[in-house]
């Protein structure tokens, strides 16, 4: 399997562990990722909320480059960051559905000497893993069964809403399924797509913290040992504000928040430093019982 | 002057094969020479054009004209001979349908000229000289006829009374025609003087064709060994026979090669290519979109295959090209 890879800015900064672990895990699964050459900002929030057309233009440039990059068959972009995934998907959909967007984008690209014919497929890693790779193939690679580990899968909003391209918009299960194929137990966590506060944590702190508190408390109440997620911003919110939440609301929360690809990597026996585990603030290794003595000695 | 019916043979955009086919009457040519008075036959006899122009209208009982129309010169001769002839017969594929030179209707005139006089690998023509309808060489004026933008069949220039199909027509068809004319036993004006059933009707391989034929793959003649006993189409090799008028006694299949359609369609068909296309596509077996595409790619050149001889007289007549000014000249 070969795909174009669109990391986006987060995976080059706060989300580095996601980038590292994703590449490692996909490599292990024999999936070839080619980073899109000369990619640019996906056009997420900052632009989208100010000038939608510009956002479309930015996103479309990436799509156009991708289209040109692949000669055999329709090109597929893998976008791990929820924001990128959403904006690229939206641009693709609008390009197909609305004349004015199609014309606008075409005009803007022409200015840059580019053309886009609308053939690119934008897909999320979860989609690839479930539908292209398949759970059996994943299970086959597992060296360290995550037996007895209770995992809460957190999807956030953007990967499934408003475009439910590969999973249920309100109660997605793809990440849970993958976790189960690693041998872990998944908790039925009704808040798996509830708001993480997004950038509120930075703007209206009180609101942001409350929202995260709900998520963390319910996750613990359901007996989770750790939370896995597929979104850099969610990971950041859930992990980095735990101290603050404990202080403000008198909680005793210390719950590891990691990328689902990191847990997959550990299960596959990929050395943890290739998975950016050390970059996390809350070390998940202690709770990952399955790894006791299981982590390769040379690590 | 003898009172035998006066006959003319003339050629336009042709290869001379039609002339040869007349010579191929062999012994019978002597019979014909007895029965008729040949007044015009450039390839084999010396005659003056002035004789023709001096003739009274319709003085020639019948003129057999072969070749398509591509130059002003040919158009003129066609019009003159129309006027001088009682019956004008389009003789052979080119006059009848446009013929193989008609395939040029798939290309702009300029592209033809540019290749011949500039691009062909052996041409040395740095100063890009082109033949001119009117040129001057050391003050000497020379002229050439106009080269039209497209190839036309005879009946696209003048009214045609009858058609003799084939590339070239078989001596048998010619002889039948001459006899019919002499006996005055001609079918309705505008008829093609050949059977009105497709080639299969006279093809010895017909009985070998299965009634439930489905074509899973198309093969090109050089890719397979064709069984001389079996229906060629049933071997997956495109044969124009089903969509082509008979009369040649299936000469090409007799040579173990498929019919390429030189006699044009039967009277019930307006567009030979469209019909064989319809028939072959329907008779092929794939159902999946991609499979269909792949299998039909086995016919790499639909136009050249289905309209080998009849492009100028097909419904479309000529490839649509960016607007040209018809008289723009080389």
């Amino acid at each position, binding site marked *: 399997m070969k795909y174009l890879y669109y990391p986006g800015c987060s995976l080059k900064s706060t989300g580095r562990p996601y980038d590292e672990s994703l590449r490692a895990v996909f490599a292990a699964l024999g999936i070839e990722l080619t980073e899109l050459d000369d990619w640019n900002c996906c056009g997420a929030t900052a632009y989208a909320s100010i000038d939608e057309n510009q956002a479309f233009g930015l996103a479309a440039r990436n799509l156009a480059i991708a289209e040109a990059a692949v000669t055999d068959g329709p090109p597929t972009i893998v976008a791990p960051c929820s924001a990128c995934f959403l904006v690229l998907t939206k641009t693709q959909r609008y390009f197909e559905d609305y004349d004015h967007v199609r014309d606008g984008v075409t005009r803007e690209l022409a200015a840059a000497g580019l053309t886009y014919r609308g053939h690119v497929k934008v897909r999320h890693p979860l989609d690839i893993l479930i539908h292209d790779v398949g759970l059996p193939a994943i299970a086959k690679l597992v060296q360290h069964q995550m037996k007895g580990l209770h995992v809460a899968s957190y999807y956030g909003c953007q990967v499934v809403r408003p475009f439910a391209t590969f999973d*249920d918009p309100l109660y997605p299960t793809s990440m849970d399924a993958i976790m189960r194929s690693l041998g872990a137990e998944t908790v039925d966590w*009704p808040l798996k797509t509830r708001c993480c506060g997004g950038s509120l944590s930075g703007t209206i702190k009180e609101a942001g913290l409350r929202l995260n508190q709900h998520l963390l408390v319910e996750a613990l109440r359901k007996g989770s040992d750790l939370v896995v997620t597929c979104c850099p911003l969610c990971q950041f919110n859930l992990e980095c504000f735990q101290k603050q939440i404990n202080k403000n609301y008198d909680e005793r929360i210390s719950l590891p928040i990691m990328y689902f690809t990191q847990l997959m990597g550990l299960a596959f026996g990929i050395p943890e430093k290739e998975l950016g585990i050390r970059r996390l603030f809350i070390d998940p290794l202690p709770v990952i019982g399955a790894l006791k003595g299981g982590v390769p000695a040379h690590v | 002057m003898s009172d035998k019916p006066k006959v003319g043979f003339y050629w336009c955009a042709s290869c001379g094969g039609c002339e040869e086919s007349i010579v191929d009457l062999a012994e019978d040519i002597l019979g014909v020479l007895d029965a008729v008075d040949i007044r015009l036959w450039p390839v084999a006899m010396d005659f003056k054009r002035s004789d023709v122009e001096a003739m009274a209208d319709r003085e020639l009982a019948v003129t057999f004209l072969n070749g398509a129309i591509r130059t002003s010169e040919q158009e003129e001769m066609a019009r003159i001979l129309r006027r001088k002839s009682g019956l004008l017969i389009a003789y052979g594929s080119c006059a009848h349908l446009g013929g193989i030179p008609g395939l040029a209707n798939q290309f702009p005139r300029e592209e033809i000229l540019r290749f011949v006089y500039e691009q062909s690998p052996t041409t040395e023509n740095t100063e890009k000289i082109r033949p001119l309808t009117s040129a001057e060489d050391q003050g000497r004026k020379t002229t050439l006829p106009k080269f039209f933008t497209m190839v036309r069949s005879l009946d696209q220039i003048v009214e045609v009374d009858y058609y003799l199909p084939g590339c070239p027509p078989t001596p048998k068809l010619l002889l039948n025609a001459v006899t019919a004319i002499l006996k005055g036993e001609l079918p309705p004006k505008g008829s093609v003087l050949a059977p009105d059933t497709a080639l299969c009707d006279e093809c010895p391989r*017909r009985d070998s064709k299965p009634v*439930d034929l489905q074509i899973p793959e198309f093969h090109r003649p050089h890719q397979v060994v064709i069984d001389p006993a079996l229906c060629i189409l049933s071997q997956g090799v495109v044969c124009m026979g*089903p*969509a082509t008028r008979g009369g040649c006694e299936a000469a090409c299949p007799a040579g173990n090669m498929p019919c390429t359609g030189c006699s044009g369609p039967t009277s*019930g068909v307006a567009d030979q290519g469209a019909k*064989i296309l319809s028939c072959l596509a*329907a*008779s092929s077996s794939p159902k999946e979109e991609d499979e269909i595409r792949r299998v039909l790619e086995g016919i790499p050149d639909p136009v050249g295959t289905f309209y080998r001889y009849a492009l100028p007289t097909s419904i479309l007549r000529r490839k649509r090209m960016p607007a040209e000014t018809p008289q723009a000249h080389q």
Partner: protein
Amino acid sequence: MSEQNGEIRIGFYVCHCGHNIANIVDVAAVARYVAGLPHVVVSREYKYMCSDPGQELLRQDIHDHRLNRIVVASCSPLLHEQTFRTATAKAGVNPFYFQMVNIRENVSWVHEDPAEATLKARDLARAAVRRVAAHKALQPKTVSINPDVLVVGGGIAGIHAALTLANAGKKVTLVERAPTIGGHMAMFDKTFPTLDCAACILTPKMSAVKNHPNITLWTYAEVTKVDGFVGNYTVTVKHKPRYVKEDLCVGCLECIDACVYKEAKVPDEFNRGLGKRKPIYIPFPQATPQVVLIDPETCIAVKSGKCKRTCVEKCDRLAIDLDQKESFDEITVGTIILATGFKTFDPKRVSYYGYGRYPNVYISLEAERLINASGPTSGELILRDGRRPKTVGIVHCVGSRDKNTHRWCSRTCCMYSLKLAHLLKEHSGAEVYNFYIDIRAAGKAYEEFYDKLLEENVHFIRGRVAEVTDWAVIPEEEGKLIIRVEDTMIGVVRRIPVDMVVLAVGMEPQSDAQEVRRLFNISCSTEGFFLERHPKLAPVDTFTDGIFIAGACQGPKDIPDSVAQAGAAAAQALMLIDSGEIKLEPNTAYLTEQNCSGCKSCINLCPYHAISYLDDKHRASINEALCKGCGTCVASCPSGAIHQNLFEDEEIYSEIDGLLAERSPESTAV
């Protein structure tokens, strides 16, 4: 006939259709324009051409002006072509000298610019005028109707249709895929609004079917093949193995007790898995036929052969046959009624309602079984976790009126939710909440029933439920299911904790509706329900003559509507049968032999084997009786030797030419 003199005299009529056409199309201009076309002798506009005076006008003109070709520009030929052909024939002109122009569905109803619409109407009219000039006189062929009828589906609709026909003296074969007839209705506890018990009114009809001399009842059977055409269908039916000889079994049920399984272990279908059954079982006490069957998936004997086969020993009538194989029957019928019913919406698709995750979330049908005296709990309202609910929430419109699932209203949910509210309260005294968008109680005595419920203090909260969750934010919510909903009456989001949730799931097409419709060669509507020929004027006909539809397979219906429609379908079938024969479109293909080269290209193209090859003559030959008139061979014949009545090449060419000939804006403003 009036065309002998060879001269073509065309009469053209453009219909206003009240305002439907005239509002957009300048009919006068069209009429004036057509008047100027060759061969047109009369060109008129008229308010309603399909009306009696309209047809009379036509007749009069034919007579006065010796017309021999008629063109009417009005609605779709699918609607009124017959009408005008008949009118034409009445006036002594061959009905196939008529051509219809569709300027309503294809013009006035879909275009807004009057100028463009008028231009288009003119083009279409001109094409028709040219076409009709090329028409030939034709004689329609008639086929006789086999009086036997096939009814597919043994729900209330199928049952009623079968009985109606059988009572009219027709031989009926009723095919039901389940082991018993009765369908969904048999699962209901009571029926709204009268609250009479479903079983009490259904079972008599079920046994009537079983015992009717004119009805052959085949349960546990499926139609696998349908050949032929109206009046002459040949149908193949597959009998699935019951492992019990139907004719020998008397339904004593002793074999069931004798089964090596002492306890019933298998979730039983009839009770929606709330109860258990044994591998050998009878779906429910009143099942018809009263015949047990063995489920090969769970029966040790069938699966592995290793079993004491106590059931076999027990049956002294030797009815049990563990080696039974599927068998096939072929029957011939003249007409077919499809009553294949519906499927309830699967609420797992709306994951946020927690069905399948929270044990105490039920769907309506399960609730029906829970409170049914012969149900798994013998009518005791005991939840999956063994508790008895003190509060129950009924969520309306689950899988209905929702663009993410189904846009349509399932029509029955409001009423059965009310019914369930009443019954649940009656059984448990619990507080019952209804969460609804609107209450749709359109039906005889329905609204009254709603009023009754209001008096019974059932709570009604107007708002679409957002989610059912066990996420407790306050102690009172612990251990409960919380229904989160915006109460649009008071404009606040409410969290209502309940013990039991009932999802009022909607009705959707059977999962195999598409295969079935291909099998019978009919169409489906966008939603996937079978498509009727006309929504108002032909609600039980389909586009395939002789095939009718009844009940929920055509769209969501309650019992009274299904029964009414079943009656209608039966009447349509009877109409065909009693008329004895039907006229078919004479649009068959024919061959001009002198042009046929015997290339055989056409032979294999005909799906109906109507073309054969004559070895002696080396020519193809078309059997018009078998030809269905698709024209595929016509389009393929490389000699142009095959032609099609009503769709001759010449007719279509003249239509193309007519559409494209002469166009320039100024001539629109005639």
